[in-house]
């Protein structure tokens, strides 16, 4: 790994950056990082390694405790995003910063609106949007409402937005996280185009394959520190992953063939119309059997959230039946659903999965405090709860200051371990499991995946796995269904025979299986 050499074409250097958050978390520690003009520089590292924080410092969203930013040989002070944009630095965030109810053109000019007298000149906004889209060869429908355009288009709009604001250095924070494989390769073509026009791109990612394919050089962070910078060609994927994790990672989970038993979860003709009047679920039918992990694939917004929320009792369907072990759950409270020995993991960890201000103990017992042992005659059994939480902290390797530590003092991965510790420790027969490893470090993800397999094999737990991570779906699932526009468009009983490309085609709605093939997921005729 080469030492940092300051070459003439170094356009930006961040020197000795240290950032400590108000909860005492050291996100960046003496990080020195530099990019050259006209390169795509991969900033890699596990979740929580400090990539986003470093970019937020550069974009003026976080103030570092220490360090300098040197742009074109001169030290600059960037206090806020407007400043950063003045210096030609633009950032596309992990989560889209768009106003969904406005049009593409309106989003484009937000804050820099062209005026006709005192009034907003919408026509010119549209024209300017079209011009900039044409100039960068990134076509977009300027008068479409943002809510109606695809995720890939939203991503494109975000990039156009910062180009419109004059950015020369583009910071992209995990731009592919929400894209399908097809949309991702399209984005890569566009980014390479921009690079060839002299733009500099910092590409944040933890996906090895993408970085190998796209980037010229990479810098790897681990636990807030720089591990090294190198040309991508010099490294293999294994090298990079070793740099990221600090040890050899086993990308494959040891998992035997599933041995499915009787149907645990039965869903028939499920329909749901969302608050905007859109049909989110359309005649969904499938079965999930004991000892089976059934993956649900789909581009975000194709009905997965609605399905998982109906199955966990948060939403009521328009019609259809859902039963767990033969009992209909449509009119059940969430408590009653949980009492059928079902565990629920929502995709939104900080809203539904954990209570930030409360202790680990209180988070662990939130679903069982009323049961014997956890409380007696309505009085909490403090000793038992303390001891059991301590044991779970040990078993799930949760890094914390003890069972009474508040959730807010934990890292994302450790919070998810707390959620898993609660939901997996009640010996569930069924788990509705949404995004179990989204945004957490490899170590935590590995532990959670191992626990899933162990539950399946040890207790015959049936798991319905919703995941946006296709690699995870393909390694963890025994069978996969694909949702597109609220419908099941494919069922793959044997995951070994498929890959991400094939899934991608069905996820984008380019292909659809025959009703007979899809009907294969109904085991209870």
């Amino acid at each position: 790994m080469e030492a940092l050499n300051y070459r003439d074409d170094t356009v930006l250097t961040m020197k000795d950056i240290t950032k400590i958050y108000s909860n005492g978390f050291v996100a960046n520690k003496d990080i020195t990082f530099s990019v050259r003009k006209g390169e795509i520089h991969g900033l890699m590292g596990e979740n929580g390694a400090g990539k986003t924080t470093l970019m937020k410092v550069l974009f003026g969203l976080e103030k570092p405790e220490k360090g300098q930013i040197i742009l074109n040989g001169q030290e600059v002070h960037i206090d806020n995003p407007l400043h950063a944009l003045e210096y030609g630095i633009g950032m596309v965030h992990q989560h889209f910063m768009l106003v969904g109810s406005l049009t593409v053109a309106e989003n484009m000019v937000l804050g820099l609106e062209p005026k006709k007298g005192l009034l907003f000149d919408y026509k010119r906004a549209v024209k300017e949007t079209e011009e900039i889209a044409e100039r960068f060869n990134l076509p977009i429908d300027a008068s479409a409402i943002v809510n109606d355009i695809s995720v890939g288009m939203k991503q494109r709009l975000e990039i156009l937005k910062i180009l419109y604001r004059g950015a020369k250095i583009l910071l992209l924070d995990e731009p592919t996280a929400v894209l399908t494989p097809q949309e991702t390769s399209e984005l890569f073509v566009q980014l390479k185009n921009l690079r060839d026009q002299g733009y500099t791109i910092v590409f944040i990612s933890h996906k090895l394959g993408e970085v190998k394919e796209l980037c010229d050089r990479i810098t790897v962070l681990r636990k807030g520190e720089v591990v090294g910078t190198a040309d991508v060609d010099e490294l293999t994927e294994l090298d990079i992953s070793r740099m990221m994790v600090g040890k050899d990672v086993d990308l494959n989970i040891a998992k035997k063939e599933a041995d499915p038993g009787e149907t645990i979860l039965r869903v028939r003709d499920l329909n749901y119309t969302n608050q905007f009047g859109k049909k989110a679920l359309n005649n969904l039918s499938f079965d999930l059997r004991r000892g089976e992990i059934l993956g649900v694939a789909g581009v975000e917004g194709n009905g997965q959230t609605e399905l998982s929320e109906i199955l966990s009792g948060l939403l009521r369907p328009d019609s259809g039946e859902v039963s767990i072990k033969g009992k209909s759950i449509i009119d059940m409270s969430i408590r009653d659903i949980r009492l059928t020995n079902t565990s629920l993991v929502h995709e939104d960890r900080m809203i539904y999965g954990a209570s930030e201000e409360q202790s680990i103990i209180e988070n662990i017992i939130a679903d069982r405090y009323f049961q014997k042992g956890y409380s007696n005659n309505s009085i909490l059994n403090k000793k038992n709860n303390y001891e059991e939480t301590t044991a779970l902290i040990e078993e799930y390797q949760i890094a914390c200051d003890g069972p009474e530590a508040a959730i807010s003092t934990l890292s994302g991965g450790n919070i998810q371990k707390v959620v898993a510790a609660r939901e997996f420790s009640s010996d569930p027969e069924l788990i509705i499991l949404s995004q179990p490893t989204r945004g957490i470090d490899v170590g935590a993800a590995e532990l959670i995946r191992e626990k899933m397999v162990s539950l399946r094999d040890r207790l015959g737990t049936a798991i319905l796995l919703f995941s946006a991570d296709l690699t995870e779906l393909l390694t963890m699932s025994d069978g996969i269904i694909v949702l597109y526009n609220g419908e099941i468009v494919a069922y793959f009983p044997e995951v070994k025979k498929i890959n991400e490309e094939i899934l991608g085609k069905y996820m984008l709605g380019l292909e659809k299986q025959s009703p007979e093939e899809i009907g294969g997921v109904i085991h209870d005729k």
Partner: protein
Amino acid sequence: MINSLKRKQVLTSQEISNRFSILRTALALLLAMGIAILLIFLVSNNAFRDIRSLLLGPLTSSNRISQMINKWIPLLFTGTAVCLFFSVGQINLAAEGAFFAGAFTSTVVAIIGGIPPGLHFILCALAGGLAGAIICGLPGIMYTKFNVMTVVSSLMINYVVLFLGLYVITNLVRDPAAGYEASYRFKESARLGELIPGSNIHTGLIIAVLVVVLGYLLLYKSTFGLQIRTIGANAAFAKYSGMPVAKVIVFTQLLGGFIAGLGGTTEVLGLYNRFGYSGLTNHGWDGIMLAVLARNNPKYIPLAALFLAYLRTSADVLNLTSNVPSEVINIIQAIIISFIAAERFLAGWEYKTIVRNTEKSMALKEGVTNE
């Protein structure tokens, strides 16, 4: 190994945050007192005497001490009630109305003759408590059923209660012989006796202390309290974990209302022989301040309430002995509330301390690994 070392020599960030929260309260109190003293200097014609009255006035005679304790009692009720409301995440401001409702409803029962002593007070307490429960429960029900903002509905309901109460007193139970707008005399069988003969302190004190203790145990030791606090911290999480969110919210409002109503009952039957209020009494508003001071934990209500009762007694002393207006006390109260509610107060200092502490623990860790 590293961890145990770290714990001994360096605090966790959470511990620092907790210390700062105590420091914030202490500093707010000091600042408020400082400003009060400054004000007294500005307006008083005998500043040193009046500052002495402010600081020590309540302790100068046994009469004033019992006055202070009698001011303390109702605050224990309303403080605990508001702790319950706030813990479940509802900004219910109807403790004021519930206190008033408790007072006038129990009045109606207390003027009925022929009920044996003891039982008579219990009936009054039930009537007052239930009235309070209804007053505070309504905003809770409106919130859970129709998503009406509790802060608005509960604020409004106070005035409904006030005028309903005044109507009842002046039209149904007014004693024309009293010489002023007041109810008939309470029957002796309904009134609370003196706790220590000759002290003027009434037995409501025992009920108040019980309420605080039970309130604390309920909130922090029982499964119901866990539900209350979880809903207050994150209602979506509570619901997803299977907790009966709406039920707990409504029941907590009813319970808090009962406590505030019981406070009103105890107050009128302990201190007076007729109902003579002509407006709201402010005990509910004080309860809000106390809950903020106590961070919604009934455990700290007695201390917070004692502080307020002390200040109020000081105000009375000032009123009697000096030209300093007793409103000085209101200023103190306002300053304290503002500082404690100001989350960013001292935030910069807290942040720096945490950063320094983290740097220290980082250095320490490195030292250990290097050895």
